């Protein structure tokens, strides 16, 4: 038996013994934090057990509390969890965004201080990048951090800070240097949200309530030791994090769209179309024009899925390829179109907001449709992505 086979067997046994029954059913994922909310007692047990093993962050080094697994071992862990339907133990921007940045840019001391807390879900982290005046032009940010003894004093405003109203800490881009050249005066700072100088206000989106907030800093403070990556070197950290974010969002373009595989079974869009407009004697979607739009969309879904796969094969490394800008652009525009087609297929049934007269699924489509409109804005607008492609990939002049 190879090491990997042994690992698989041990993992399977451990999961069998330690994953509580309730956590083998679909359901919400907890986000940890100082005042964690568990929708079921099993959630707390599951988080504690997985956190102790470091399997909330399976590939992180074990000296920082991570699982220390190889890529292959992690793949096995994911497969075995999926086999018993095990829920993810912890949702966290700390895991998805801050952690990888700390691993790459932080000092040994900073890693030791912050990573174990992320692994165990002790703090709920949020991200403070955008500001009202700096959307696509992120580097024009103006939130200031001024030195004051061992601390920085922070003043300014962030926007689109997801879950800021529930988070314990924020990783933040702040201006520590002069305005010009603007990229060179930015630092990456970790700030505690639990202080009087920090207030938040939730943002209502066109799709309804949202996790987004505005976050205000009014003489807030952070210790100097929590500046990551060096004074005025925050832009490097930020760029890497943005790349991760874009890849995350571009993959959304495939969520539910197209089967991506060789299977003949109808995909969601075609099925919904048949359900709402009916099928003809040949089992075709009854409205030929809608059928043609649906088929084109499914074909593009598949071509896009194959492209992500091809890019993966081509790069075979973790570093984002130049095609990442294309994926973010195409994936989000494609996803928006998918929802427009769902609306077209469902007619007046996709136009409900709440209450009676619509099924919960129908109401969800309406809200999701509105939510997709932000896909091509958040994490770099489509326009910015097209700029990036034309400049970096195509070499067109400024």
């Amino acid at each position, binding site marked *: 038996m190879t090491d990997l086979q042994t690992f698989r067997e041990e993992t399977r046994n451990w999961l069998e013994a330690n994953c509580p029954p309730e956590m083998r059913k679909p359901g919400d994922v907890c986000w940890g934090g100082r005042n964690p909310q568990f929708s079921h007692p099993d959630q707390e047990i599951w988080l504690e057990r997985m956190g102790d093993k470091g399997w909330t962050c399976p590939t992180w080094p074990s000296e920082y509390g991570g699982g220390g697994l190889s890529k292959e071992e992690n793949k096995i862990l994911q497969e075995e969890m999926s086999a018993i339907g095990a829920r993810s133990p912890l949702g966290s921007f700390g895991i998805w965004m801050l952690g990888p940045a700390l691993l790459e840019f932080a000092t040994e001391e900073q890693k030791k201080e912050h990573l174990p807390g992320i692994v165990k879900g002790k703090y709920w982290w949020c991200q403070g990048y*955008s500001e009202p005046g*700096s*959307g*696509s*032009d992120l580097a*024009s940010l103006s939130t200031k951090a001024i030195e004051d003894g061992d601390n920085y004093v922070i003043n300014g405003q962030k*926007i*689109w800070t997801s879950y800021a109203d529930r988070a314990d800490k924020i990783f933040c881009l702040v201006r520590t240097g002069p305005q010009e050249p603007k990229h060179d005066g930015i630092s990456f700072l970790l700030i505690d949200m639990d202080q009087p100088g920090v207030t938040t206000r939730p*943002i*209502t*989106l*066109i*799709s309804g309530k949202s996790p987004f907030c505005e976050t205000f800093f009014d003489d807030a403070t952070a210790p100097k030791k929590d500046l990551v990556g060096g004074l005025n070197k925050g832009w490097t950290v930020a760029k890497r994090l943005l790349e991760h974010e874009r890849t995350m969002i571009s993959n959304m373009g495939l969520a539910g769209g197209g089967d991506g595989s060789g299977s003949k079974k109808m995909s969601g869009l075609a099925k919904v179309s048949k359900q*709402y*407009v009916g099928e003809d004697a040949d089992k075709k979607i009854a*409205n030929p*024009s*809608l059928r043609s739009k649906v088929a084109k969309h499914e074909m593009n879904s598949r071509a896009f899925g194959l492209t992500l796969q091809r890019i993966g094969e081509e790069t075979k490394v973790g570093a984002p390829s130049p095609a990442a800008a294309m994926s973010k652009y195409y994936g989000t525009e494609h996803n*928006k179109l998918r929802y*427009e087609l769902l*609306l*077209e297929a*469902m*007619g*007046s*049934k996709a*136009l*409900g*907001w*709440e*209450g*009676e*007269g*619509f099924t919960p699924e129908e109401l969800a489509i*309406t809200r999701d449709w*509105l939510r997709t*409109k*932000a896909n*091509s*804005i*958040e994490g770099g*607008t*489509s*326009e910015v992505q*097209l700029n990036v492609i034309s400049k970096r990939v195509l070499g067109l002049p400024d």
Partner: protein
Amino acid sequence: MALILNEEQQSLKDIARDFLEKNAPITHFREIRDTANETGYSQELWKEMSELGWAGILVSEDYGGFDFGMMGMGGILEETGKTLTPSPLFSTAVLGASLLEMAGDDTQKSNYLPRLVSGELTTAFALEEGSHHNPTNITTSAKKDRDNFVINGKKTFVIDGHSADLIIVAARTKGDEDDPNGISLFCVDSNNKNLKVIKQSMVDSRNCAEIELKNVTVSKNDLLGDLHNAYSVIENVLDVARVAIAAEMLGNSSKAFEITLDYLKERKQFGVLIGSFQALKHRAAEMYSEIELTKSAVVSAMNAIDEKSNDTARLSSLCKFKACETSHLVSNESVQMHGGVGVTDEYDVGLFLKRSRVAEQVFGNADYHVDRYATLSEY
């Protein structure tokens, strides 16, 4: 063919704009929405609109109306599209008035129209039964029972159906589903105990209802128009209504575009106004072209209705098609060009997006009218 408003029509439109900007700007719509107003519009505002004569624009003078035609009504609707003003203008002054005018006998007209003109009576047209517009897809049945008709069935997407006083129901009195023959219209009092009305809370915060009819009994005097032969009246009324909603959508698109242009001229990124980015400029210019085309299609269809042109059906489909296409494009582009703030509820531009999609579905979306135009053109 007149493709511009005459002086009277223009003046009516100007008055409407001034009135709406003052009495029913977008903040008015937000207030109705956020207070979860039960009728979905301000009854006081509707009273004022009626006093201005708007309810009677399509009603003949014999019944207290002003017989001012679609060139008049369209201009007002365009203005309400700009301010997103909720009111029974479409359901009552367009749909109800046209149905009663075209199908009603003298008794019915005398009974309903003067009250409609004065703003006392509101109406709704219970037509659709499925998720997509299909005026021949009528399975709701009306069976004769001595001097009465007994109606059974279920209607959906009935605009203002939860607040109207009078529900005009399309029901089948003979023939099979999808047969244009055998459809009749009935006047049903909304207080009828056998009506089950469910208010549908729509994405645009306007007012629709699902209406279930269980042994709803009406007198034979409530038959509106000829027995079995209501379809041609329905098609004529629908053409009027399609032009009306297209006019509103034109206003919707124009205003969303205007708001977006303003934003492009004031928002800075990378040290310059975003309106100076050529890619956005070109997209704006394309939207402008589409809006111009829509404007022409709408005014020519309004004119065709007033002149009783024999090409009204095609022009009505043309203008609904262009209104749908343009408002789809402009609403999406407007949100995108606003960037992050475009997807917040705080900014108005999202409200136009929401209204756009609902209006697109009213009495046939773009696809429906492309198909209809081709069929009417014999290809």
